[in-house]
């Protein structure tokens, strides 16, 4: 993909085509653990987006001066700083969300999405594109985990964002709030996404106009399998 990437395509790329959680299957730990409630998903998504945009920006600025020997520690320090800043801000201004997200805020540091985007994207592109990519990826991540959170909350607790939705329809299945429910809902959503995305991909394969066949392209490299 040597040619100049259009900023808009970079932004939208993170939402559907390369949705970090449902297509590239990155950042699984928080998206399974925190999504017992849709509100948590939203909070976690927003926090992760802030960290993602911030770290993408800084990393793309310092990518030229950081020698390869200390590349990983330097990038990790940048990401950790942004995460701690989010953690402090949340603890100061949104205490009850902070109580719910608990241990998972510091774990944004090792959230694979952020480090993957830093390595894959921020290291090769300028600050503007990296920020856009961070926004796109963050929005995609937020969308995905809020969707997972909503499904799990409706099925598991009969409420959505706290509003009782299905209390008298059926007895909520607690299983969906427990870990197995997380895997299950995630699995079905990824399957749904494969169905949607594949329909578009099929058209991609027929008109072979696109510069297909290069093994380096991200679609072939880590299509379904992580």
């Amino acid at each position, binding site marked *: 993909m040597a040619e100049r990437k259009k900023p808009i395509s970079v932004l939208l790329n993170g939402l559907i085509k390369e949705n970090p959680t449902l297509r590239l299957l990155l950042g699984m730990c928080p998206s399974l653990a925190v999504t017992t409630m849709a509100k948590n998903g939203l909070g976690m998504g927003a926090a992760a987006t802030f960290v993602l945009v911030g770290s993408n920006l800084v990393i793309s600025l310092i990518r030229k001066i950081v020698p390869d*020997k200390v590349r990983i520690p330097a990038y990790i*320090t940048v990401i950790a700083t942004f995460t701690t800043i989010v953690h402090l801000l949340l603890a100061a201004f949104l205490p009850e969300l902070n109580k719910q997200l608990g241990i998972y805020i510091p774990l944004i540091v090792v959230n694979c999405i952020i480090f993957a985007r830093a390595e894959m994207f921020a290291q090769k592109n300028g600050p503007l594109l990296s920020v856009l990519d961070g926004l796109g990826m963050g929005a995609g991540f937020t969308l995905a985990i809020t969707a997972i959170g909503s499904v799990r909350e409706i099925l598991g607790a009969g409420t959505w964002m706290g509003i009782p939705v299905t209390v008298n329809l059926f007895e909520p299945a607690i299983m969906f709030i427990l870990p197995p429910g997380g895997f299950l809902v995630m699995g079905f959503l990824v399957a749904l996404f494969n169905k949607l995305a594949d329909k578009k991909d099929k058209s991609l394969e027929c008109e*072979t106009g696109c510069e*297909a066949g290069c*093994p380096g392209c991200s679609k072939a490299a880590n299509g379904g399998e992580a």
Partner: protein
Amino acid sequence: MSILIPVAVVSGLGLVFGLGLSYASKVFEVKVDERISAVREMLPGANCGACGYSGCDGLAEAIINEGVHPSRCPVGGIAVVNAIADYLGIDEGSIDVNVARVLCQGNCDNVVFKYNYLGIEDCHAANALAGGMDACSYGCVGLGSCKKVCQFDAIIVENGLARIIPEKCTGCGNCVAECPKSIIKLVPVLSGFTVKCNNHDKGVIARKNCKVGCIACQRCVKVCPSEAITMDNNLAVIDPEKCTNCGQCAEACPQKCITNTIVKRFK
């Protein structure tokens, strides 16, 4: 003041680790010829093993140490070969880059079925059951074993027949080895016309099993100006070297099983 202590603590740690890491990478440096890592960068990096080495690292080492020609990597196409050749200052030489092609057109509409197969979606499994469900025992079973093996998503299975997308195929040969019916052949990329059939039965039997199979009528052999087509026990075979892609055999063939698949990528 309360900012100084944390900054001192963490950057002190950073300094210690910086020194430690760079010192360690110096002391424990494994002598590597930097040309190898340069060539490794240029190779596509799919580690598919089509070049016969254990992935791109193996090939990079072989190119530098054993003088293997870069075109040994079929996956990268002309761009990679030229890049490495210029880097090493050797001439590109002839490119024997191949592309895989399924020599069969027997999808569900054309071929007659012996039985209705509902087992595991795997050609080997179907093939174990009396040679697969197609009446023509040479034909493509169409259950996608080749698709599972293809790293470059170059194979799609439609209507019971595997089809290889020439632009995506890198000629790594994984599918050729995988296919239980061995009907996928590696042909030179520039060869357009091929006989899309693998059936060695007599014409009358072939016609009964499949609408588009080669019935060995030998019309193509007679009509070909450069005698590129020979009969290999009831199956017409086009010799890529001699074939000039004139296309007369395709018109002459009553069963329409000779087709033209020129690959745009190498124009």
